[in-house]
Structures are given as structure tokens and as C-alpha cells.
């Protein structure tokens, strides 16, 4: 992976000016209000998220500058935050951001197959956006749902217990403009054991430890 690259010096002109919409401005004010006075900078991440959502999933330089000025922070300090977190995008992305977890637990459970299915179904490789602007495919580090591995995240939802076929089906639905049901794709309830309950099977009360 290549490192973060500087926005071009004239990026501001290309991307056009940025400002919060009326509704988002009200929301931003509320968010900043959650933090003590003189600690407004703490609101940097929620505000960047707000700006990113308003701007179709990515942050052009004027949006970064806008948030910095909004909070009275030097631009470089906000840029540091933006480049640190992979959830902030500095380049345009598709409407559906498909993030495939390939960290060890997911990989052990078959994330390679899931990733291949993504590539094939979407016709794009990692860090690419489909021509119609619908999908962006990225690889991410652990997103904290190992118990339902392998997992992919699409925008704000997790899709779990995947394999190649289930992934392809999921993406086909998205392609048709439908929204698949988030969560386990095998019908498992939350993170319950895959092979059915192994403990607390009887409805009776738990017995005390015998023999003491």
C-alpha cells in the first residue's frame, strides 16, 4: 500500500467550496456542544464523519479545511486525524464501500474466498471503484467481528458468516439496488454457537457445583 499523499496545492479549486448543509450545521453545533468549552477540538472525528457523509463518502481538501476552521484547529492537525483512520477517505469512493476483513481469524475462516468473490462479482480489484460509481472495494484490518468470521462491512452494516457464494449473492442483490439484510448470512442468531447451543440447554435452574 502506498502512503497517504498530499492533496494538490490547488485541490481547493478542483473540489469546490465546502460548507455544512443547514441540517448538518445544526447537528454539528449539537456535537460540539457535547464537549467542554475550550475542548471543541474533541469533536473533530464526529464532524469529519458528518462532512464525509454529506460529501458522498469522501473528504476533499476544502472539507478538511472547513472542519479545521470550524473547530479553530490548524489544518495539519485535522489532516493527521484524517490520514490516521482508514475510515476517512481522501479520494472519491463508490456508493457502496465494500470493506473485506482479511485479518487472521477471518482469513482462517476463508476471507480469501470472500475477497475473490468480491473481485469477480464487482469486476474491480482492491482500492478500485467500479465504473458506474456504485462500488469501492477495500481490504481492512480486523473490524472486531471475528466470532462471525469471515466478515465484510458495506457502508454502515456488517455482513457475517460469509463464503464465496453467499458473498456473490449479497453483492448481486446490492447491484439490483436492493438492500440485503445485515448480520449473519447463515441465519445464525447474533453470535450464537454455529453448531447449536452447547450450554444452558436445559430450561432448569443452574445447579450448584456438586461435590463441594
Amino acid at each position, binding site marked *: 500500500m*502506498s*502512503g*497517504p499523499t*498530499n492533496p494538490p*496545492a490547488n485541490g481547493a479549486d478542483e473540489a469546490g467550496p465546502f460548507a455544512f448543509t443547514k441540517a448538518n450545521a445544526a447537528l454539528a453545533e449539537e456535537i460540539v456542544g457535547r464537549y467542554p468549552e475550550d475542548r471543541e477540538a474533541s469533536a473533530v472525528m464526529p464532524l469529519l464523519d458528518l462532512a464525509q457523509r454529506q460529501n458522498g463518502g469522501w473528504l476533499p481538501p476544502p472539507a478538511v479545511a472547513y472542519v479545521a476552521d470550524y473547530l479553530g484547529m490548524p*489544518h*495539519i492537525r485535522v*489532516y493527521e486525524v484524517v490520514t*490516521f483512520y482508514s475510515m476517512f477517505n481522501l479520494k472519491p469512493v463508490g456508493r457502496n464501500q465494500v470493506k473485506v476483513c482479511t485479518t487472521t481469524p477471518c482469513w482462517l475462516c476463508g476471507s480469501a474466498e470472500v475477497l475473490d468473490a468480491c473481485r469477480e462479482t464487482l469486476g474491480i480489484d482492491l482500492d478500485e471503484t467500479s465504473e458506474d460509481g456504485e462500488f469501492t472495494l477495500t481490504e481492512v484490518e480486523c473490524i472486531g467481528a471475528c466470532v462471525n468470521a469471515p466478515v465484510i462491512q458495506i457502508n454502515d452494516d456488517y455482513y457475517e458468516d460469509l463464503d464465496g457464494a453467499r458473498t456473490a449473492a449479497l453483492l448481486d442483490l446490492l447491484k439490483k439496488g436492493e438492500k440485503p439484510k445485515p448480520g449473519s448470512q447463515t441465519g445464525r442468531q447474533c453470535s450464537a454457537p454455529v453448531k447449536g447451543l452447547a450450554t444452558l440447554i436445559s430450561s432448569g435452574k443452574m445447579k450448584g457445583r456438586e461435590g463441594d
Partner: protein
Amino acid sequence: MPKLTIDGVEVEVEPGITVLQACETAGVEIPRFCYHERLSIAGNCRMCLVEMEKSPKPVASCAMPVADGMVILTHSEMAVKARRGVMEFLLINHPLDCPICDQGGECDLQDQALFYGFDRTRFEEPKRSVEEKDFGPLIQTFMTRCIHCTRCVRFATEIAGVEELGLTGRGEDVEIDTYVEKALGSELSGNMIDLCPVGALTSKPYAFTARSWELGKTESVDALDAVGSAIRVDSRDGEVMRILPRLNEAVNEEWISDKTRFAYDGLRRQRLDRPYVRRDGKLEEASWDEAFAAIAGQLEDAPGQRIAAIAGDLADCESMLALKDLMAALGSANTDCRQDGARIEAGRRAGYIFNTTIAGIEQADACLLIGTNARFEAPLINARLRKRYLAGGFSVGFVGPEVDLTYRAERLGAGPKTLGEIAEGEHPFARVLDHASHPMLIIGQGALARPDGAQVLATARAIAEETGMIADGWNGFNVLHLAAARVGGLDIGFVPGEGGLDVAAILEAASSGGLDAVYLLGADEIDMAGLADTFVIYQGHNGDAGAEAADVILPGAAYTEKDATYVNTEGRVQYTRLAVFPPGEAREDWKIVRALSGVLGQTLAYDDIGALRARMAEVNRIFAAPDEAQPAEWGAFGTPGEMDPAPFAYPVENFYMTDPITRASVTMAKCTELARSVNKDKTGTDG
């Protein structure tokens, strides 16, 4: 006070310090990259790991506060093994390019790798490489060498007050970067080169010109502004190769400004390396004898009052005193060292020095800046003000045009009107000063070098007296000078004597044919048009405005080429030392004046620098006590009266070019060009 055991030795240390500092007081050196005593603690390089009893893991000593009863082992197997591990990781992505790296020979990483490094690598993957950055004409980047200690980021943020550098990305992608690629807008940026523990940030002008072990090192002081920063002049083969800061807690701590550091190429360019005499309107090379003969011929029949002398901004005290004595012997009282026309009197020392002292700023709790942009006029005094500001509880107000001083300062007004209101106690800031326990004011040449300067000075004195700036053990009245020569000139008494002419009167008399000769001792910042019809003797080291107007040029020595005395704005007497010899026929300045005095039949009574310095101490006893800022007695100065309502203007428009040396420097020209273009982008206008 907590007691702890370091390597089996019990030490008692100040509470609140870190284990690393405690080890230092115990005489044990801990290796480090990110830790720096003048910057905030980052704790990210992990090189300072030590073993601490009852801790299962080694601890980063730079970030661990001391506690009573701690048992620290700094060179145990665990500590050394941990550091070896850290070093191996640091070297994973560090290129092995020491032979072509300018830091080689004075590199922290190189030195510490000698003790903790492994002689081969276990890392088989390709090393990462990082794009170079453009940090302007002063700093060369080799970002692949960066070990991400973030010293430069912390320096820019904390000391320089320019939040432009940051650490972007994370993990293997981490880089030191600016947001939008641009040069660093700080007058102190060169210090990052010293701070960088590896060769990631090196000096662009010095690049590949010398190795540290080839250089002769001379401890000296800077003369390019009135701060008098302690410097080390590194030279080789009779040329100054670079200038570095030297520690002086009282003045510059361990920083120097970019002008001090990078203007040295001006010492090699446009030098006056032999005498010149104007014949038929053209300056021609001449011998010393011919030059002196030309002067003697002109002065032979000239009555004393038709001769005048002006000392410039870089003149040293020895040559000023010699010239003053010579002028007195010739019967002239027309001497002046205030070429900018500042209305400062020589008599009352408290009225022209920085009484609070630079270190004293840290005790102040309110400050009024009058007609001074300290950031351009004395970056290190500005850095001290910022340091005080960061410590909290420091209100700063300024009178003058809008300016960014790198700390929060309230603009009180544009000029004398506001100053009058503060003096009358009508302005809200007067109450701020009143309530402060250690108030101070700094008055700059922007307020003094104007026709009503004496009245402005008197008003400032009134403010000082009325707001409690003058108290036992505290003097909050400060004059900020621009020229290294100025305080020394005033101490020597290089001002008009009884019935003598000042600079303005000299220029006027010269243009109306009232003078037979004017002696310019490195004076280049006056209006030379006034001297067109007069015989001009110019003694100096760089060909600038003065040399152009001269009829005889006497080649002198720059501040790196002579043992000379300078008095900084605090009134601190300091010595420069000869690092390289003056080029060609050029000579130390006082010797030129002394030799000329012999030719003129007025031989001065000192034959060596010892005798001259004894004479200086006789003229003013402060010269007997070098390196100290001596308290000056308070008293009346300035002339109370009506002030001109015209607003103050800052005297230094271009920080990088203020004297003949910096105007001859290519590096300073590049900085000037860049500053102009940045300014243009910002305001849409030039300048």
C-alpha cells in the same frame, strides 16, 4: 524529595522529574532519540528503555515520573536487550547510506547503533522509501531516513509556534509532512536540522560541502541582530562552512534564527578584499598606503567641524571607540551611531537597553509591545515571549500594524494616540498592566526612529513608571534594538559631542557643502544621495550602498573574522572570536583606524587589543564585565511633549535582509523571494 536507586547508587532528586532526568543527575547517560529537554515528551522512540524493579517490562524512562523507592537498572541485561531490539526495528527501514549522508559523523542514530546495533539485518523484505518533501531553501529532506521521533513537529508547534508540520498516516505509512506542500513559515526553522537525530532534515546550503570532523570550531556571538546569540562558527580552509547555535540560557537557549544560521554565504560574496581609491570618478584598486595617502590629502586642511563619522549596524565597539578617539583628535564632534535616526540618548543606560533581560521575560505576566514586530526584529526574544505565553497567565498587547507574533496578542491601536491613552490610564490595557505583578513593555525602533521618537520614549517611560514596571529587583522597561552595534555605540558614546551633528544633520550638511569628509564605519543604511558631493571614506567588509558612494574604501573584517566586542540589546558585553582571517588585504577594523591615525599624525594611544579594551573599560566600566547583563540605574530620559499622531510602522519589512552581509547572501535572497511569493498568495499583492 524522592530517593531512588540508579544502578545501585542512591540519589535524591527533585520531585516531578522523569527517570531519565534522574539518571542524568546521577551521571548515567540514557540513549534517546525523541526526548528533548525543551520539547514536550513524546515517548515514541523507545530507545530510553530501562529496567525498573517490580515492573515486568522495561519502562520508557523519558516518560516515567520518579517515585520514592524506585530501583532502576540502566545497563542490565534486560535494558540492553530491549534497546537492541528497538535499534533493530529502527534500522529496518533506515537506509544504510551513512557515507553519503550529511549527518554522518554527528548522527545520534549512528552513534547509538555503535553500542546497540547488530552488524547485520534479519529483515529480508524491501525497505520502504518515502517521497522527499519540499521544505524550502533552507532544509533538505531525506525522508527515507526519518525515524519518526517527531522532534521537528514538536519544535514547529511549541517553540516556533507555526503549526504546519505533522505526522500523517500510521504504521508503516507514517510520514512527517505539511498539509499542503509548502516551505515552513518560521524564522527559526533551521533549528529542526539540529534537533533531527538522523539525516532526515539537513541543511540545504551546507549540503555535501564538508564533514563535521574536518571543521575548525570557533565559539563566537552573532552580530546580525541585537540579540547576540551564542554561535559556533565552523570553518575549513579559511572559509566559514556553517554556523550553529551554542548554549546560552540567558540569551538564545539553544536556538538561533535562520538569518544567523544561513547568512554566512554573504561572508564570501561581494567582499571588499583590498583598498580602493576613486580616480576620475572610478573606483580603482589601490594599496593601503595609497588609500591612506588619499585620506590624508583630503583631511590635511579640513577643520575638525567639517569632518563627520557614522557607524553602521555591524560595527564593533573597538573600532567605534578608536574612530571616536580619532575624530576627537581631529577636532570633530560629529559622530553618530544611530544611522536610522532613532531618538535615543546615550546618557541614561536604562533608557536604551532591554532592562528586563531576555531570560527575565519568563518572570513577566503582562507585556506591552510598542512599534515592534519582535518576530522579525529579534526572533529569539519573540520565542522567549511565546515560551512565557505558553506557560499561561501572560497578557500581551501591541501598538502598531496588525501582525502575527505566533502567540495570542491583542492589538490595542495603531500609534501614539493609543500609547497616550495607556499613559493616561484611559485605555483598558493600562489596567491589565496595573494589575500585573511583573509588567513589562518593549519599545521598538518603529516607535523611536521617527522625528517624535524622544516624545514616544518619554511616554513609554511614563507608562513604565505609572504601571509599576519599575520596582525593587524588577525593571520592565525594554528597548529592542535591531543592530548589534547600537548598544555598544551608545555605551562608547558614539553620538554627537558638544555642538556635534547627528546623522540627519551630517547628511544635510554634506549635501549643502558643509562637510569636507564623511567617514562611514560600515554604514550602509543611510541615504547616500546626500553624500554625493562629499569625500566619503567607507570602511567595511561587503560592497553595498556605502562602498558604492565611497571615494576611498578601506576593507575591514566581518564579525567572524575578528576578536571584537559587541553589546547586545540587554547591554550584555560579548566577544566574537576570529574564526577565519579577513580575505585578501582586509584587516581588523580597529587596526585600520589605528593605522590611519598614525598617517594623520594623531597616533592613538593603544597598540594592541588589550590596551584598547582597557581604554574601553575606562570610557565605560560595563566593558570590564563581559557576559553579564548589568542592571542599569533608572532615571529621566526622553523628552516629554506632543507626539505626531502618525501610526507606527515596523522597521523590518524583510526579515532575511537587513545588513550588507545578508543582502549579499544567496540563501537569504532565496528566502526573501519565497516569503514574497507566499505573501503574494495570501494577500494578492506583492509585499
